[in-house]
């Protein structure tokens, strides 16, 4: 009970601290959604119905996981540099409470972009969604996993390295991952790599959740996603407990 209360108080602390950057955060998410929907649309010209479905469902996935994989590590790296990370670790709070409060904040902050992406995609490509009843749960699972991977990256790596990695990840997620197009278009080696990375399963989960009439979620992807989520949480907790 005490740990839960502390987690919620820490969430309040972190959310209020990030809330002032909320307008900026939402603006960035709007740009991401527009870039992936309108920008990709320009690249491919008049898309076939299947391509249109990929583009429309890829946009919310890209904005959703960019927050977790890119913004979360950047903010955590910044808090390490400015000293608030170490100060918070001096508080008599279980290390897991820090992690869960941060994951909760970042999961919530990623949602506006997700919704915007869905709206932008549906409007631009005039597609009909068939959302599954578990879409909300799927969004939360993807958001938590992305935030956990980002959090682990920022806590385990030196701030400068983590920040550099996030810059690379933007391009990997937007261009070199089977999010807005099918994996069959990738070179074999990259398609194989994505079978073990968390990005493709995230895209599959959102795609199947938004258009369940057309897509399904492979069991392999659920397992890969689960492993990444658990490993990232364990890695982040270990980093929070680490003593120098």
């Amino acid at each position, binding site marked *: 009970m*005490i740990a839960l209360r*502390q987690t919620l*108080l*820490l969430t*309040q*602390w972190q959310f*209020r*601290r*990030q*809330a*002032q*950057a909320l307008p900026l955060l939402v603006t960035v998410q709007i740009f991401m959604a527009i870039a992936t929907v309108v920008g990709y649309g320009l690249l491919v010209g008049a898309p076939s119905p299947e391509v249109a479905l990929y583009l429309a469902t890829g946009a919310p996935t890209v904005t959703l996981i960019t927050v977790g994989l890119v913004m979360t590590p950047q903010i955590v790296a910044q*808090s390490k540099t*400015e*000293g*608030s990370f*170490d*100060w918070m*670790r*001096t*508080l*008599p*709070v*279980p290390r897991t409470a820090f992690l869960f409060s941060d994951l909760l904040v970042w999961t919530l902050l990623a949602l506006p972009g997700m919704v915007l992406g869905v709206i932008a995609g549906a409007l631009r490509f005039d597609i009909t969604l068939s959302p599954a009843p578990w879409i909300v749960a799927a969004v939360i699972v993807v958001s938590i996993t992305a935030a956990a991977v980002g959090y682990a990256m920022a806590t385990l790596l030196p701030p400068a390295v983590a920040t550099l990695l996030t810059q690379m990840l933007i391009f990997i997620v937007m261009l070199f991952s089977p999010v807005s197009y099918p994996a069959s278009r990738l070179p074999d080696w990259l398609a194989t790599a994505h079978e073990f990375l968390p990005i493709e399963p995230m895209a599959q989960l959102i795609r199947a959740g938004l258009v369940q009439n057309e897509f399904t979620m492979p069991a392999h992807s659920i397992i890969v996603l689960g492993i990444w989520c658990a490993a990232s949480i364990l890695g982040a907790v270990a980093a929070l407990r680490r*003593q*120098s």
Partner: protein
Amino acid sequence: MTISNTLSIAELTKRYRGRSGVQANDGITFNVSPGSVVGLLGHNGAGKTTLVNQIVGLVRPDAGSIHIDGIDAIAKPNLARQLVSIQAQANVPITGLTPRLAIELVARIRGISKPDARRRTQHLLDVLQLGEWADTPSQKVSGGIARLTSFAMTAVAPGRLVVLDEPTNDVDPVRRRLLWEQIRALADNGAALLLVTHNVREAERVVDHLVVLEQGKVIAAGTPASLTAHLHGALTFEVNVSPDTTIVWPATLERAPHPSGGLEQVRMTGTVRPAHAAEFVHWAQAQVDGGRIEHYALAPASLEDAYLQFVSKNTATATVRKEPTFTPALTKERA
């Protein structure tokens, strides 16, 4: 280790790995008892922050022990943290929060009920005269107000041990006095206080006991009176010599003058016995009138002088003083 001490540190040793391999702490031993304020003095890099980080379990010592209220802080850092509240050297960034909200939230995170947290926060805002800024977004408050907020966040639900790292930095003189009162009040309410500072002159009035660190070692420890005992009766002088001037010093100086400070003019310090003080002032005034020195000051030797002596003995750099910060008791400026 005796249970009567809130903080017991014995033979604490920490060496950072890596190429430089800094020996940050080297066999440090001291105690802090409930209701007392212990000042931890030392240069930048003397090992103070490493020591503090070991107390709250952020850094793991190589050898030695830390006990807080009898609990082994190295083996059980989670338990130890419940007994310690700490004000870090750098201000905690609280952008997005107001001072009042930040103080209240920390109190509640530390287990204080909401109404109680609110009441305690209001009390601290009142006694530190922070009311004007209490509800201002923290990105708009000055460094001094941020520093005091950071102190209040530490004092609102104090642990059995309270660690304050340079609490008075950036704080204005009026609130500085209020802050020292609150620091003393924490100890009077039974907390053990470890005050990390290089502001020797101010700490002197508040601390019960001092520990001087240099290159990771305790080079002196004792009450302020015991540390200054050997200086009793001595006066410190400081003279700013005019550029390109040769000075003939009076023969009665106890400790020969040494240069310190910048290049524009040469600042010299040394000590003189009280019996020769009048003679010194007479001499110095004649030098001022003759344009050979620009400024002089004479003050009773203080804890700061003792501290500088300990440190300089240890580093064998004689009595060179880079930045004299004391307020002269007797000052005469050339018109």
